[in-house]
């Protein structure tokens, strides 16, 4: 598999970074044997843990999702047997599962464009000569990222509560935790935590643009808006793609914030997001069904991330060619 982010191929391409000098010196038989031995020695600890806590669980998940529970008779002992795609049929025919997927899609549309759009605007301002006190703003906007999602949700939960909130005018007149608005309330929590983080990723990319480029545009009479629009934004497109992929993965995994909100909002049920359905199925406990949910969710995540990457790659290439 090759993950290609922003035109730099992460994968075989990275090897080029180490250059032809890698394993330099005696490239004879002894050098090659030494490379293999040493390489494996350095990799072994990681690979053992990676296998134990990544590969085996993934494989186990897939196996479990293909099994099912039966009883030999009405009151007989429970038995786990091969079930083929029984669990997957249950997943795909479950209206609640589709509803939860639709919900995170709506959530994505509410949260991500605004989040990345604001992050881009903040990053551009931090990078422009118009703004002063950049160090302060950069830090202030990034601080929420230090707040764990669960704690952020608890904190905002208090701010949304009509009796407690310091923002009485809003909290008492709008039912922020009701069925209509709670999705916006959760989106606000997520955006509060991650906007500054995305801002820093985009800002790092902006800092990497050669000054000569913007300087030349400025001398040619381009204003800050024009420089931002025609030079800076296209140049940071790869960073935007990266933050977009992180957002897709993050949205599909949505769990912590809605789970916390469940304590204060009756509008959030145990089937609110796909991940909450995994948790609910595991609590029954129906591990086979929960495993099938996990596998489907992981596949959806991978497919969407890759589609997004390919799609954005093609459009960047097209722009580069045209």
């Amino acid at each position, binding site marked *: *598999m090759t*993950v290609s982010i922003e035109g*730099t191929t992460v*994968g*075989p391409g990275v*090897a080029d*970074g*180490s*250059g032809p000098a*890698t394993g330099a010196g005696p490239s004879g038989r002894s050098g*090659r044997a030494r*490379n293999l031995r*040493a390489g494996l*020695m*350095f*990799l072994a*600890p990681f*690979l053992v843990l*990676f296998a134990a*806590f*990544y590969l085996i669980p*993934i494989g186990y998940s897939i196996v*479990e999702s293909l099994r099912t529970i039966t009883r030999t008779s009405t009151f007989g002992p429970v038995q786990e047997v091969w079930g083929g795609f029984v669990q997957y049929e249950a997943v795909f025919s479950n209206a609640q599962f589709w509803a939860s997927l639709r919900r995170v899609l709506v959530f994505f549309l509410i949260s991500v464009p605004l989040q990345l759009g604001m992050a881009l605007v903040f990053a551009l*301002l931090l990078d422009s*000569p*118009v*703004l002063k006190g950049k160090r*302060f703003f950069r*830090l*202030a*906007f*990034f601080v929420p*990222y*230090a707040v*764990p999602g669960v*704690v952020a949700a*608890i*904190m905002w*939960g*208090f701010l949304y509560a009509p*009796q*407690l909130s310091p923002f009485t005018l809003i909290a008492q007149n709008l039912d922020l935790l009701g069925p209509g608005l709670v999705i916006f309330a959760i989106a606000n929590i997520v955006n509060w935590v991650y*906007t500054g983080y995305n801002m*820093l*990723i985009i800002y*790092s990319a902006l800092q990497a643009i050669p000054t000569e480029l913007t300087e030349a545009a400025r001398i040619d009479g381009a204003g800050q808006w024009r420089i931002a629009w025609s030079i800076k934004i296209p140049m940071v497109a790869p960073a935007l793609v990266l933050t977009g992929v992180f957002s897709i*993965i993050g949205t599909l*995994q949505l*769990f*912590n914030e809605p789970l*916390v909100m469940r*304590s204060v909002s009756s509008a959030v049920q145990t089937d609110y997001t796909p991940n909450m359905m*995994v*948790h609910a199925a*595991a609590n029954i406990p129906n591990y086979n069904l929960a*495993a099938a949910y*996990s*596998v489907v969710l992981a596949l959806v*995540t*991978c497919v969407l991330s890759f589609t997004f990457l390919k799609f954005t790659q093609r459009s960047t290439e097209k722009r580069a060619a045209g």
Partner: protein
Amino acid sequence: MTAATLPATRHRASKQNPVSVAAATLFMVIFTGYFLAPIWWLVVSASKPRSELTTATGLWFGDSFVLPQNVAETLTFDDALFLRWMLNSLIYAGFGGAIATLIAAMAGYGLSKYVFPGREAVFNVILAGVLVPSTALALPLFLLFAQVGATNTLWSVLLPSCVSPFGVYLARIYAASSVPDELLEAARLDGAGELRTFFTISIRLMAPALVTIFLFQFVATWNNFFLPLIMLQNSRLYPVTLGLQTWYSQIGHQPYLLLSVIVGALLSIVPLIIAFLMLQRFWRSGLGAGGVK
């Protein structure tokens, strides 16, 4: 920014239209309020006596400032349960982060400095691991730990936190650019073993990357919620996120927990904010490596 470019920037800044400057600053100040007000509210509320937390709380301190008493009460409540949670989080995130960093650094270094058959295949499988959502792993991990009777133990949360595929990626890139092959060759000629060279020379050259990997893993584990939620039943093993959520969900029945949750939320974010402020430059370089490379 280098010293040479600084005067030019100043010159440019001075030429900006004052209206634009004011508008941009106002815009950013408003959003500073948005990002900091919730934390400010937490500080203010944690400083109030319980009786003042039943009505609209406001954004300023109450009549009496009782933060120290509130902190003491929260820390000692229920046999110092909260202190235990903080300590657990520190163990999970601290040890998990340290071990993850060391083995990811070794793996990244191995992938960068030694050419052997199957190297790229191994690297690509590890990279695929970056895209696997950690929540998809929690359930099968629970089932596997259950088979060896190890759920509801410290290990069930600590061990899975020792693996960072992203760390391997970062370490490989960094080792490729910061550890010269000539240096390794020289060490070899001097008769040093490969491991010894790594631990005495290379690891120092890779130090900035190591700090970044550690920070990422520390924060990821500190924020982790799904895995402990699934693995742990014993509340004395909870990390602080799970503990606070448990208290929060009980406020309806036990209103006196409200104060503990507010103070606990504040205490839980203080260590991370301090770490962030102190280690900013590492963060920025790490984000840069992820986003720009």
